[in-house]
């Protein structure tokens, strides 16, 4: 029992500690591809620390939603973090929810951020909120479908169980539907973490921004919480990618050695995923907002194909 609580605490600490690092590493890799020096990988920590020391400036017109939204989204992200396997497949809170719960927790966070963006009544905020919901309406079904394709094969929607089964199956788990679902999920990860073909994370005050437009009204400590929440979301999406589609190396029982190895493997996996993401970001240009349905329907179609090929291979 005590070790179970310990594992949960470690998992939360790992998520909190790694999330800014991942952002820093991705920015560094991106800078490398663009032949720049770029800020150090610990820069997000300094930024967060700086924001934490500052006071918030809040518009007079906002309601309680504006104050509650960062905390609700942050809490929703951390709760999702307890359900998603990070370094151990049998998470103590694994019983509390499955992939559907994760999708809805992400949706809850998104809903409150979008509400808060409308709250201050600025035109940018409303634009950002409506765009975010527009993208979300296509990302969510694709996210569910792509993980369902793997879940169908395993026979459970519990993320810990999925990653354990895939991990035990070894290389034989790599099948057409696995691959198709991975490609679909990678496109979703681009959209969910606000990376370049969909959204540009390194811009303020550009008419095409999505996430930045939503949080334009926030400052100081609240902004720090929102930013950290976004970084955690990014880490969680990568963790989903890593531990659903190639979970090899994940710890299956509570042992110090196993967990240490699993943590190192996890960091390597997310760094590799981050490098892939940085490459995509460097090579593509930001897409027009109204072309996004095309990209996301590719993802939706691939996850649909994953399901179909599952039926063909297994049921044919």
């Amino acid at each position: 029992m005590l070790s179970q609580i310990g594992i949960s605490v470690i998992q939360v600490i790992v998520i909190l500690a790694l999330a800014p690092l991942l952002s820093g590493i991705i920015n560094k890799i991106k800078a490398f591809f663009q032949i720049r020096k770029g800020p150090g990988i610990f820069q997000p920590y300094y930024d967060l620390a700086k924001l934490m020391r500052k006071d918030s400036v809040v518009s007079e017109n906002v309601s309680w939603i504006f104050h509650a939204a960062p905390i609700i989204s942050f809490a929703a992200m951390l709760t999702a973090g307890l359900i998603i396997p990070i370094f151990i497949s049998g998470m103590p809170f694994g019983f509390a929810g499955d992939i559907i719960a994760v999708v809805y927790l992400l949706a809850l966070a998104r809903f409150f951020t979008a509400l808060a963006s409308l709250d201050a009544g600025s035109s940018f905020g409303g634009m950002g909120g409506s765009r975010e919901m527009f993208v979300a309406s296509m990302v969510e079904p694709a996210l569910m479908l792509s993980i369902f394709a793997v879940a169908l094969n395993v026979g459970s929607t519990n993320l810990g169980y999925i990653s354990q089964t895939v991990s035990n199956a070894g290389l034989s788990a790599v099948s057409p539907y696995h691959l198709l679902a991975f490609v679909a999920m990678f496109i979703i990860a681009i959209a969910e973490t606000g990376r370049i073909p969909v959204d540009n994370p390194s811009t303020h005050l550009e008419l095409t921004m999505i996430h930045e437009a939503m949080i334009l009204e926030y400052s100081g400590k609240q902004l720090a919480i929102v930013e950290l929440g976004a970084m955690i979301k990014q880490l969680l999406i990568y963790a989903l990618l890593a531990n659903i589609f190639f979970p090899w190396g994940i710890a299956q029982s509570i042992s110090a050695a196993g967990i240490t190895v699993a943590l190192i493997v996890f960091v390597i996996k997310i760094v590799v995923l981050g490098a892939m993401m940085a490459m995509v970001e460097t090579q593509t240009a930001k897409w027009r907002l109204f072309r996004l349905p095309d990209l996301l329907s590719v993802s939706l179609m691939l996850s649909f194909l994953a399901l179909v090929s599952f039926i063909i291979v297994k049921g044919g």
Partner: protein
Amino acid sequence: MEEVIFGSGIMQLLIALILVTTFMILGSTRLYSCVRAFGIQSFLLACVASVVGFSTGKYDLYIIAFLTLVLKAVVIPYIFIYIIREIKVKREIELYVGISPSLIIGGMLVVIAYYLIRSIDVITGLSSFALSASMSLVSIGLFIMISRKKAIMQMLGILIMENGLFLVAISLTNGMPLLVELGIFFDVLIGVLIMGILIFRINKTFETIDTDKLKTLIG
């Protein structure tokens, strides 16, 4: 025998990747990325041929794989790029059906192909995955031909259909006789050359390769 080859993991992965490249062609709006996706698809087909050759021990399949690699993955994409450069065609594809609807139609075609293949009893011994993938390649190729305006895309569509037929042949018979395959390759190459010349002529006469505008009479 066939079940072993086509049920194997590598084979299924290759076929899934071929489907992915087909959807890349359906989902992209740039001519160059379509041509690149076609090159990758042909490369994967060459891999399929050599895997079948390896597991059946028919060595003429290696020759076929090599020819596929050289002709379809290198020469034909090069001809495409040459045409695109020479006649300075606009890089974007114009379509009758938008990208998202085409992708949905593509997905539906895959499902239809699967049900068609399933209703044929003769081939129960074979992997229905390879066959339904090749059927969907043929039908998606046809769909690309009728839904895109550029003459180049119609050329690409017929080549995707050809790739689908190649996959049918290889998954039904474990490779046709070398002479037949050589004939088909020659056919495809000449076909591409003739179509290329035709596109040049269309461009010369109409100053566009948009097939939508071919309806205008020119005296």
